[in-house]
């Protein structure tokens, strides 16, 4: 009987009832922690330089850079950047809504997957490549101007490139997936039966949208809008490539101040501002997601 009681001989384990040993947590987190640590060091570097003095960024202490932020030129650029980010967030959210509706309602998995890939491509593919395409469409001799002059006979080329309209187009185009995915997730969580009930009770489609779909989808749409806003406050490539030298954002000014103008403290102070904006946007996003979960839960 003793042999049957113990059919499998215990393996030569030193501590029989000891908890299963796993590798130490610190060792597992060390490599990733080093990378993230470097990011934090970068944040500290700009923080230190922002309170440094010009040409003595590591030794001097001064708050002049932050006072320069309030100069009318810098304030204008800050407000302008935030305004463009806001406007792009609004447009992107509006544009994303029908696409999100399509994604949630289509019954064809192939169409769904194709649309998903189609909205992801503009975000993934190098903006340089896409800006070449925009130049061919929007430039002075581009497709759009050809079409306009053919239709109206007006020969004076009007350009959508190297101005705010071109930048806005680029900002919206590259951030659409950020708005579509949360909106689609929110729309998917609305049970069909609610829409059917509204219909049975005599609501037309417009009332259904106003009183059922939009109120239930708005946390997802807001989350997407906030994401787009956060993403576009740091916009650098789009204004650099599609804005020519006419449209400046905070990120472009940081480049100029740290580079050719060599006012490092001012560039660093603007960097601190961008980091704070990003963190604020992230917290706002968390807040909306959490409230939404609490309501649903």
């Amino acid at each position, binding site marked *: 009987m003793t042999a049957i009681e113990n059919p499998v001989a215990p393996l030569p384990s030193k501590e029989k009832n000891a908890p299963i040993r796993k590798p130490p947590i610190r060792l597992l987190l060390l490599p990733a922690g080093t990378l993230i640590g*470097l990011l934090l060091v970068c944040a500290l570097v700009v923080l230190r330089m922002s309170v440094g003095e010009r040409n003595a960024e590591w030794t001097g202490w001064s708050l002049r850079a932050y006072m320069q932020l309030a100069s009318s030129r810098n304030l204008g650029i800050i407000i302008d950047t935030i305004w463009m980010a806001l406007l792009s967030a609004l447009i992107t959210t509006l544009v994303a809504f029908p696409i999100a509706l399509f994604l949630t309602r289509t019954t064809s998995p192939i169409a769904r997957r194709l649309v998903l890939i189609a909205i992801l491509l503009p975000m993934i593919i*190098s903006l340089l490549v896409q800006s*070449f395409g*925009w130049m061919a469409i929007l430039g002075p001799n581009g497709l759009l101007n050809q079409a306009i002059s053919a239709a109206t006979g007006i020969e004076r080329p009007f350009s959508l490139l190297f101005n705010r309209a071109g930048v806005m187009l680029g900002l919206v185009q590259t951030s659409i997936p950020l708005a579509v995915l949360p909106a689609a997730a929110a729309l998917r969580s609305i049970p069909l039966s609610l829409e059917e009930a509204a219909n049975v009770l005599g609501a037309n489609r417009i009332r259904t949208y106003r009183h059922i779909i939009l109120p239930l989808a708005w946390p997802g749409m807001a989350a997407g809008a906030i994401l787009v806003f956060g993403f576009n406050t740091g916009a650098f490539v789009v204004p650099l490539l599609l804005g020519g030298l006419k449209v400046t954002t905070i990120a472009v000014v*940081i480049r100029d101040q740290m580079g050719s103008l060599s006012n490092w403290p001012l560039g660093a102070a603007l960097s601190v501002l961008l980091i704070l904006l990003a963190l604020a946007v992230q917290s706002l996003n968390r807040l909306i997601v959490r409230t939404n979960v609490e309501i649903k839960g």
Partner: protein
Amino acid sequence: MSMPTATGRFGIEWQLVNGITCMLLALMLAPICMVLVISFTSGETLQFPPPALSLRWYQEVWTMLVGPDAGIGRLRESLLVSLEIAALTSLVCVLAGVPASYALVRYRFAGKTLIEELIGLPVIFPAVVLGIALLVLVSASGLDFGIFQIVVAHSIIGLPFLMRNCMAAMRGIDPMLEEAAMTLGASAPKVFREIVLPLASGGIASGAILVFILSFNEFTLSYFLYSVDVFPLSIWLFQQANTSFSPAVFAVSSLIVVVNVAAVLVVDAVIGSRGSAA
């Protein structure tokens, strides 16, 4: 009102949603399509529509890549540098991200939420600030890191993308499997190697490909950290855009688009086959 329209999946409303979606997607993909079409032009300029179709600019690119004068235009050099950076970045992200993902999925410890927040930080951190700060650090150190200053920068922003995929895959592994293996006497490294890694390999692979594309296309960080010797493809394209603008640049761009689309399809297939697509 008839029943089928009650949920907006049929009728005029559905056609409207369909139509608007198609229009928006066409607009979004217009620049990419434009690049593809113009790259096949037979002419010398970027005119649209092209006078005739030809492969002459692809032949041109081929000579730029492997011809006797390949060293002059720097296209081959920058392509190879970009591939090297992307491969190294994927490697660094896998080596750093896989153990950390395992720790976050399987361990309970104090400060876990904080670490999860920190891992997500690179996604929202302004790339310009990261690029500038790294540049300041590199020049303050006085050392020449060569290719590695871009690899490290790309690894920082790639890490969250790899870990997101990897953690999703690891969450799908039944902890009982690991416990069973350990009870049967397998050491912790062996369990990791023979149970966790094979079962998470799809997530790790799709994450690694994603990081590879991200790095290959990345512009902002490369813009601040490139040097005369380390000259990635995105910087090459940027310089072309500012100087000569021949259809050859469009042909190079088209090849990049094809590589990107292929990579996206592979990721999609890997994630899709695991039944966890978005």
